[in-house]
C-alpha cells in the first residue's frame, strides 16, 4: 500500500501525447485533447496525471466517433510520462432502419448518418419516418380510425471546440401530420432550426438556446371542422427564439425511485414590423415548466409527484392559433383521459388551450417475489385543467379560473421498465370531469419514455 501510494504521488511531467489508430480525425480536434495535458505543471503527482488523461479519454469517447478510447501512460525516462490514446474509429457511414410499435401507433423509420465527416466530429444525418396512429389499441378487434404522419429531417451537428458537452445543431425538417383523430385538420411544417446545447455533467443539467423558423400550413379541413379550427387554417410563419433547461438528478429517467427532475421551455416569438426583420406573423410568448420529485420509502416502495404548468401569451390583440396551443391528457400525461382529452373543445374538435396546470402523485410498490425486477404495482391520482384565454387578458382572473376546477382521475395498475421505455397498464376511474373531456375509464395502456 505504501509502495502504491508512492507511485501515485511520484512527481512526473507529461512530456508527450500520442494518438494511435487515427485515420480520419483531424489534428485540430486531437490538439483540443492533447493541449490541456501538455499544459500541465512541470511536476505533478502521477495519480493526478493519470486522472487527467482518463478524463480526457472519457470526453473523447463521448464525441461518438470512436468505438473505444484506451489510455496508457508510458514512462521512458524518470520523471517523464508519455500519454498514449489508443483508439478505433467508428465507420463513417451508418445506416439504420426500424419499426416502432406502441399501443395505438406504429411507425417505420430509416436513417443515414455520416459521422466525423470532416474530421472534427461533425455529423450529417438524414432520417425519414412514416407513422400511423389509431384511435383504438391495435389489440382491440373493433374498427378504428387512423391518422397518418410522416417526417423528414436533415441534421448537422458539431461539437463546439471539440467539446461533446457543447453541441451546435442545425437542422432542416419537413413534417406532415394529420390531426384528424383529435381535430379536423392536417398540418404541414417546413423549417430550419439552429440550436446550441450545453451539458453540465456535474449538475446533470442541459441548457439549449436556439432559433427556429417554420412555415406551417393548416389544411384539409373538410366540411365538419369547427369555426375555432377553421379560422386558423392556412399559412403562417413562426420565427422564434427558444430556450430550454433540464435538470435531471433522478436515479432512472424511465422509472425513477429517487431524485428530482426540472424542465422549462420558453418560446419567444420575435416581434418585428411587417416586412422587416426576421419575418413571421405569429406573435406570442410561450413557456411551460415541469417538476418531478421521486422519494424512496423503503422496502422497494417509492413515491413520485409531478407538477406542470404552461402559458401561451399572445402579443398585441391577436388570439393564439390552434397549432400553437397546449394539449393535455393521455396515458403519459393525465391518466384516465384520452390523448389530448382535457381542455377546450368546439364540437368534435379539440382546440387546445393557452394555460394549463397539471399535477399527479404515484405510489410504486414492489410485487411479491419480484421485488428486484423492474415491474411495480402502481397507484396514482392525477389532475389537470386547461383554459383558452381568448379576449381575457387579465392573467389573475385567468389563473383563478384555471385553478378553480380540475379534471381528476385515480387508478391502479402495473408499471414495467424496459430498456428504452416504460409500459403502464392501469385501471382508471375518472372522478371529476368537464362535460367536454374525452374520458377513458377502465383499462388504459401507456407506452413512453417520460410519464408525468
Amino acid at each position, binding site marked *: 500500500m505504501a509502495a502504491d501510494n508512492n507511485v501515485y504521488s511520484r512527481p512526473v511531467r507529461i512530456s508527450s501525447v500520442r494518438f494511435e489508430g487515427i485515420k480520419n480525425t483531424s489534428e485540430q480536434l486531437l490538439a483540443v485533447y492533447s493541449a490541456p495535458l501538455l499544459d500541465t505543471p512541470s511536476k505533478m503527482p502521477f495519480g493526478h496525471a493519470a486522472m487527467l488523461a482518463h478524463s480526457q479519454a472519457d470526453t473523447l469517447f463521448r464525441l461518438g466517433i470512436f468505438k473505444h478510447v484506451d489510455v496508457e501512460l508510458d514512462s521512458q525516462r524518470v520523471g517523464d510520462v508519455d500519454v498514449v490514446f489508443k483508439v478505433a474509429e467508428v465507420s463513417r457511414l451508418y445506416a439504420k432502419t426500424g419499426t416502432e410499435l406502441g399501443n395505438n401507433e406504429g411507425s417505420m423509420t430509416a436513417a443515414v448518418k455520416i459521422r466525423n465527416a470532416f474530421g472534427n466530429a461533425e455529423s450529417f444525418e438524414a432520417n425519414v419516418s412514416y407513422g400511423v396512429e389509431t384511435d383504438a389499441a391495435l389489440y382491440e378487434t373493433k374498427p378504428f380510425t387512423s391518422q397518418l404522419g410522416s417526417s423528414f429531417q436533415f441534421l448537422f451537428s458539431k461539437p463546439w471546440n471539440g467539446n461533446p458537452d457543447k453541441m451546435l445543431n442545425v437542422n432542416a425538417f419537413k413534417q406532415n401530420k394529420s390531426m384528424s383523430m383529435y381535430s379536423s385538420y392536417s398540418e404541414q411544417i417546413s423549417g430550419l432550426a439552429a440550436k446550441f446545447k450545453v451539458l453540465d455533467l456535474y449538475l446533470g443539467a442541459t441548457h439549449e438556446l436556439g432559433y427556429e423558423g417554420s412555415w406551417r400550413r393548416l389544411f384539409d379541413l373538410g366540411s365538419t371542422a369547427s369555426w375555432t379550427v377553421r379560422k386558423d*387554417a392556412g399559412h403562417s410563419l413562426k420565427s422564434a427564439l427558444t430556450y430550454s433547461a433540464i435538470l435531471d438528478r433522478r436515479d432512472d429517467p424511465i422509472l425513477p425511485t429517487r431524485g428530482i427532475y426540472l424542465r422549462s421551455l420558453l418560446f419567444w416569438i420575435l416581434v418585428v414590423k411587417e*416586412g422587416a426583420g426576421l419575418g413571421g406573423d405569429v406573435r406570442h410568448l410561450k413557456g411551460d415548466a415541469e417538476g418531478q420529485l421521486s422519494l424512496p420509502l423503503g422496502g422497494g416502495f417509492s413515491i413520485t409527484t409531478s407538477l406542470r404548468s404552461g402559458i401561451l401569451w399572445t402579443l398585441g390583440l391577436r388570439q393564439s392559433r390552434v397549432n400553437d396551443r397546449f394539449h393535455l391528457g393521455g396515458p403519459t400525461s393525465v391518466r384516465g383521459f384520452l390523448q389530448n382529452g382535457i381542455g377546450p373543445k368546439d364540437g368534435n374538435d379539440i382546440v387546445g388551450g393557452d394555460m394549463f396546470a397539471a399535477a399527479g402523485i404515484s405510489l410504486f410498490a414492489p410485487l411479491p417475489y419480484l421485488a428486484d425486477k423492474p415491474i411495480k404495482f402502481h397507484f396514482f391520482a392525477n389532475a389537470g385543467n386547461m383554459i383558452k384565454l381568448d379576449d381575457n387578458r387579465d392573467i389573475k382572473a385567468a389563473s383563478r379560473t384555471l385553478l378553480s376546477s380540475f379534471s381528476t382521475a385515480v387508478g391502479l395498475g402495473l408499471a414495467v421498465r424496459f430498456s428504452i421505455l416504460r409500459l403502464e397498464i392501469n385501471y382508471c376511474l375518472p372522478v371529476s370531469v368537464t362535460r367536454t373531456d374525452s374520458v377513458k375509464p377502465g383499462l388504459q395502456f401507456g407506452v413512453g419514455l417520460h410519464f408525468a
Partner: protein
Amino acid sequence: MEYLTAAQQQWTAFTARFPLETKEPVWTPENVPAVSVLFVFNRAANGTTSMEVDSLAAQALLLFAGYPHIVKDCHEHDQSPSGQLPYLLTTKGKALAGREIIDEVMDQIPGFGSHLKSTEKADSFAISSLAESKLHFGLLYDLWYSPQNSLKVAFPQYSHDRPWPLKEVLPRIRRWEQMDWMLKHHVTIDKEEILDDVKVALSAYAVQLDQKQYLFGSKPTLADATLFAYLHILLSTFNTAAGSHSHARDIIMRHDNLVQYARRIWGSWFTERIE
C-alpha cells in the same frame, strides 16, 4: 360462479358511479352567426368586389337571389371545406363551398330563377359551362401564364397580408397550381386557340344578351352571376397595373353590350361594401 357474478355486478355498480362530478366547461366556442357569412378572396381596399372570379360569382349570386348575408375578406383558401374560396358559413354553423353554395341559395330562395322556362334553364346551364370552360382559360392565361402580368397583377393580390418570405413564395406556388390546372385540361397552352375560344364564348354571350338587361330577361340568374364575374375581373384587373395587358379584355371591349352590362350590374348591385 354465483359469487363471481355478484362480485362483477357490485363492481359494475361501483364503477357506474364515476365520474362523481361532471362540470360545465369554462370555455365555450363562439355562437353560430346570426346571419350567413360569405368568405371571399380579398376585395380591393374599400372595394366591393372580390379579386377572384369564383368569389365574385358567389357574391353576385347571393345578391341577385336576395340571400341574407354579410361578406368578409379572406386570403386563406385552406379555410374553405373544398380548399378553394369562397365558402359560406350558414346560420346553422355549416360551412359550404362550391356547388353547395348554389344548392343552399336555391333551397332557401326557391323563387330565384323560377321565371325561366325549361328551355331557358337548359340554356342557362350551357351558358354557365361556356364561361367555366372557355372564359376561365382566357382569364388564367392572361393572369398567370404571362410572366409580366403574373408579376404585376396576380402576385400583389396573393402576397397581400403575408410576411416575408411567404409573400414571395405563395404567389409562385399559386401560379404553379394554375399552370398545372391548365396543362391538365389542355395538352398544350396555345395562345391563339385559347383566345379563339374566348372570342367564341363572348360572341355567344353578346348574342344571348343582345339589348336585354340580363341574359334571360329583366331578372338576373345564376348565369348572369357567372358571366358578370368574368367580365368584371377582366375589365377591372388589368387597367391599373402599368405594363400589364389582357388579350381577353381587348376582345370584351369589342362587344359594347357586354361592357355596358358589366358596368350596369356593378353600378346597381355593388355600390356598398357589405360587411
